[in-house]
């Protein structure tokens, strides 16, 4: 168990939602990096996160592209998928995210899931 704050990468294209969730995650004791696109997510992955919260609809790709890319990494990072629409069953089957959180979600629901897969020490 790490003594430092868990590091979470939050990939979401909507700036408003991103800032609200980030504020809440930070208040709950996480270190959060935000990404608004696939490209940004890749840039932010220089530091490997403990958990990724992933929106499926991104401006330059889908969350599945990010998941696909993450899959190629040596030690996979747990992923929580969020979406405003029911997720694609095939991709869910293939990538097996830790959890799927349907929008609109309450912040406690997200925090509970995050706490489960990246507990704050």
């Amino acid at each position, binding site marked *: 168990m790490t003594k430092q704050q868990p590091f979470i990468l939050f990939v979401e294209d909507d700036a*408003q939602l991103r800032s609200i969730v980030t504020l809440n995650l930070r208040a709950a004791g996480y270190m959060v990096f935000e990404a608004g696109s696939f490209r*940004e997510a890749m840039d932010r992955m220089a530091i490997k996160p403990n958990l990724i919260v992933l929106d499926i609809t991104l401006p330059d790709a889908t969350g599945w592209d990010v998941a*696909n890319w993450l899959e190629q990494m040596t030690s996979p990072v747990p992923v929580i998928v969020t979406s405003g629409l029911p997720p694609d069953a095939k991709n869910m089957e293939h990538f097996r995210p830790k959890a799927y959180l349907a929008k609109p979600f309450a912040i406690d629901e997200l925090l509970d899931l995050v706490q489960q897969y990246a507990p704050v020490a």
Partner: protein
Amino acid sequence: MLNRFVTLPFRPAKRPVWYGPAGYLATIGGLTLATAVMHALLSLVTIASTYLVYLVIVVAVSVGWGLKQGILASVLGFLAANFFFTQPVFTFTVAAIQDVIALITFLSLATLSSQLVARLRREARDARQSEQTTATLYALSQTLTGQQSRPGTLEEVAAQLRAALNLTACSIILTEPGDTGTASAVAPTLVGEHPESNTVVRMPLLVGGKRYGLLQLTLPPARRSLTRGEQRMVAAFTTQLQMALERDRLHSSEIEAEVLRRTDALRAALLSAVAHDLRTPLTSIKSAATGLLSTHVEWSKSEQQGFLKAIVQEVDRINRIVGNLLDISLIEAGRMQPHKELHHIEDVITTVTERLSPELHNHPLSIEIEANLPAIPIDDIQIDEVLTNLLENAIKYTPTATPVEVRACRHGDLIRIEVADQGPGIPPEHFSQLFNRFYRVTVDSAGAGQVPRGTGLGLAIVKAIVEAHGGQVGAANAPEEGAVFWFTLPICSVERHEAADGPLLSHIPTR
């Protein structure tokens, strides 16, 4: 669709009524004249030459009028030759046996000639008629097959058939089966002359085994039936017409099915897009509200203010989406009418950019407005929507931190407003459909193929509003990076002006 039914007015037959009697008169006249001349020159003519002269008249009458007149000429010629030129003259008795033989030979020869000539005449007429029939049927089939459901096609074929058969009227009455399966018949009302005594011939039109309508032929007053050739022609024509109707019916049901399929696909796509677009701000609201409600965190006053502000903004955003949906319903109903008043475009730009400042937070915004732009007659709420949609698009389709620019300048009698971004630009294949309703630019994605974004309503609304203001819209890619969306608004609303075709700024190429 082909027109319901067609009726054409009366046209008289080609041959006048006096044609037949004139033949008999000519026969009698010709024989009388020939007899008088030959009798006057009695010393010069032999009995044999009188037979030849009469024979010539018989053939001439047969050629000119036909068998009946020919036979009449033969009999009269025989009697005249007997009475005037055979011994004893001026009696119908014949003295010499050779004269009897000559007279009987003449009568036989004359009768045979007139029959032969009449048959030739009839054959020539039949050949002409069948040639005409072929030509008519060819023209009819050309009309029926050449055009796909063109309005007026049925009028044309009815006119052709009526002209070909010299009919008083020709009607094609369609009784299309309704949804319940009951056929509703449409009664024809004849235009022009239509004596009730006219014979009417009706042929059912069968399409797909079912009675689809009626072909109704009104014969000219003198006629009681169609000739065999005409019947053949009508039968062939009916077959052609049935095939055309069948094809037309299949074609329209195919179109209907295709329209339904597309409408269903569009509705499904729109609903899922709207669901996604609504759920994002709803998530912001729910996250912010539940965050505020959380007992685990002590939010500072400014943080609380931030969440509450976010909630208000997101409610506005949802309201804009709902507004867009209502706009589309107005556009579909053709009721997108601007309530124009004089406004400065600068004020609209300021209002919109201030309202969108939270969304624009991650995009450096620059505004460039030409000095002293005149007030223009616009519906400020609608133009606000145009600008909001264009700016939201710029935010939605470009990566964080790329700048967005709003420009306004005068261009002749127009004011031109541009929203430029520095995102990935518009793939050229999308330009033609960019402003179409439900059309969404897709993003190339390695894992999931083409990913459409948004509802596909924003730019369609932009176009409808701008055009309702008498302006134009367009989009182009900048040479280095990003897309430019522009629209024009006339400075004077009374006059209609042609908008500039390409972007005003010379460094942006038009595509």
